[in-house]
């Protein structure tokens, strides 16, 4: 039986922005490990950037995710190597559940970007000057609308349109609505078995019968 999940195309995302400044923001900062003692992703949103947002007595610290003006934001604007560290999908899950639909940054750790794609969240890149200018603009215009055109690789904000880069595979996956790969790959089950049989290390007994 193949699954019947509806996979929406993500050609564009729009919303107001929230800037998170700094390079090398790792997944332990995005979602500390102690909040991963769960068997579902539900409710992770409130723990996004937890240790950066709250002190030991749970009092709020200065952080964009705590600021009223960013509570409705859906586009995260970050710097370089964002999402480095662990493979935990809890990180993009927490951001998504907080309300983030797209991320613009200088660069992303690969597993993190892959995890975002699996959730239909574009991770688009631009050079550091462009990003800093965008962060400044978001800072000054917390309600300002940003529009990310995934297919055209452009971001429009204020009266400006800037070029951004979207990884080829990511762009196709989002625009054509094939970012959820399970059904797609399941439909190739025969070809998978064929590849498998040609591998000397796989026991025939481990290869399932055709459905």
């Amino acid at each position: 039986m193949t699954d019947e999940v509806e996979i929406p195309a993500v050609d564009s995302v729009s919303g107001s922005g929230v800037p998170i400044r700094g390079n090398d923001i790792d997944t332990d900062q995005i979602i500390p490990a102690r909040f991963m003692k769960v068997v579902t992703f539900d409710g992770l949103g409130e723990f996004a950037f937890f240790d950066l947002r709250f002190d030991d007595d749970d009092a709020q610290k200065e952080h964009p995710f705590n600021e009223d003006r960013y509570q409705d934001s859906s586009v995260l604007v970050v710097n370089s190597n964002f999402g480095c560290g662990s493979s935990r999908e809890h990180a993009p899950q927490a951001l998504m559940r907080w309300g983030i639909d797209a991320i613009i940054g200088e660069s992303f750790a690969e597993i993190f970007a892959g995890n975002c794609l699996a959730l239909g969240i574009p991770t688009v890149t631009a050079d550091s000057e462009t990003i800093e200018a965008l962060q400044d603009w978001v800072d000054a215009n917390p309600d300002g609308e940003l529009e990310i055109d995934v297919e055209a690789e452009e971001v429009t904000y204020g009266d400006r349109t800037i070029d951004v880069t979207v990884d080829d595979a990511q762009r196709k996956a989002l625009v054509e609505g094939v970012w959820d790969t399970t059904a797609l790959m399941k439909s190739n089950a025969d070809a998978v078995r064929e590849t498998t049989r040609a591998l000397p290390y796989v026991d025939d007994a481990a290869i399932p019968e055709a459905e």
Partner: protein
Amino acid sequence: MSAETLYDKVWDRHTVTTLPTGQDQLFVGLHLIHEVTSPQAFGMLRERDLEVAYPELTHATVDHIVPTADQSRPYEEDAAEEMMAELEENVRDAGIDFSDPTTGDQGIVHVIGPEQGLTQPGKTIVCGDSHTSTHGAFGALAFGIGTSQIRDVLATGTVAMEKQKVRKIQVDGELGDGVEAKDIILEIIRRLGTEGGVGYVYEYAGEAIESLGMEGRMSICNMSIEGGARAGYVNPDETTYEWLKETDYFQENPERFEELKPYWESIRSDEDADYDDVVHIDADELEPVVTWGTTPGQGVGISDPIPEPESLPAEKQDTARRAQEHMRVEPGETMAGYDIDVAFLGSCTNARLPDLRRAARIVEGREVADDVRAMVVPGSQRVQEAAAEEGLKDTFEEAGFEWRNAGCSMCLGMNEDQLEGDEACASSSNRNFVGRQGSKDGRTVLMNPRMVAAAAITGEVSDVRDLKEVTSV
């Protein structure tokens, strides 16, 4: 065909087809799972009414949340018990082998795969864990994946990936006294940066790599991800084959060894293979490396000064300043003499038998410094047992170390083993991110296992070469 890398060859052998996205659909030869990242994937399967396609190529362990002191069930912490129970149910329903703690085979996923012979050259190996790169030490193509991809692998036996570039890291020369595999990889990350490997797979080669045992090669491949590379590997050779022979799989199926060896030989990188980039490191010049900051790339030789932020590339300066503030270190000084409160000897980077042996030779006949909490957390139950048999457990305990059960423990502080307040920890693990070891004010200094032993004894970051080894008869 010639001029191909191991990466090209293994990739091609496992490619089912190219997907409409341009990604390749890769067959997965071994899928390792653990309790933290798999339950949501099993949940997604249930939602879609799908079954595990290749249960026999899937293997489970429990490592992140498992208590390392009292392991009686139910676990004291409800959340840990719930995760364990969920994993037990999932593997039972799907018919997946599970190295649970009652088997004597349990341990950190990247320690047990190689021990049992599940990890083999020329396999594609994935796990919902970024340090899956460890298995590349055997000439496997191994990388970490996210939970949605775990769902894909469970449901289809395949994963969608884009092919990456290959950077050869040629490490020539010979390691000096007190310098280890860990120092090679810390140096590589220091030089190339934590994002230097993004878009690349690292092939580690050269005489310094070839002369390492499998454990050293695993320590290096393990931290490929800290350098931004999703995978790293070493071409299989006699050292690899000697290890494989001793594993469960080839002990039980000795005929498979000769059957598979031609395949292993065939996937080695060709002499004239093309690389997208080549980097040279001279092992002779290395000394023990320790980190001074809060990313694994912020490392320095033990006798070298901590860098002035201004001396670093512009984009690194801000991070460096914040890191130095958090760690409370002064540029211009060395890390030697930095007070520590905790010594952690563990993790999938450095908690295998030879790691513990080398560290034990340092602590033998000495005592852990007053006020230092020191613990050894073996990487697996087998390491734990073998180490106890050799007397290493006694050596550590006599010196004042706590001897724990196998698990991830203080590498990420998901169980009860955590730093408290602003404690500083000399750690043989792989990540020094803020908050990583369970306390957001905690301070982690990464180093090789003998350096951890030396720090435990002296109470401060110390050059292990200054401590004379006491060798037992």
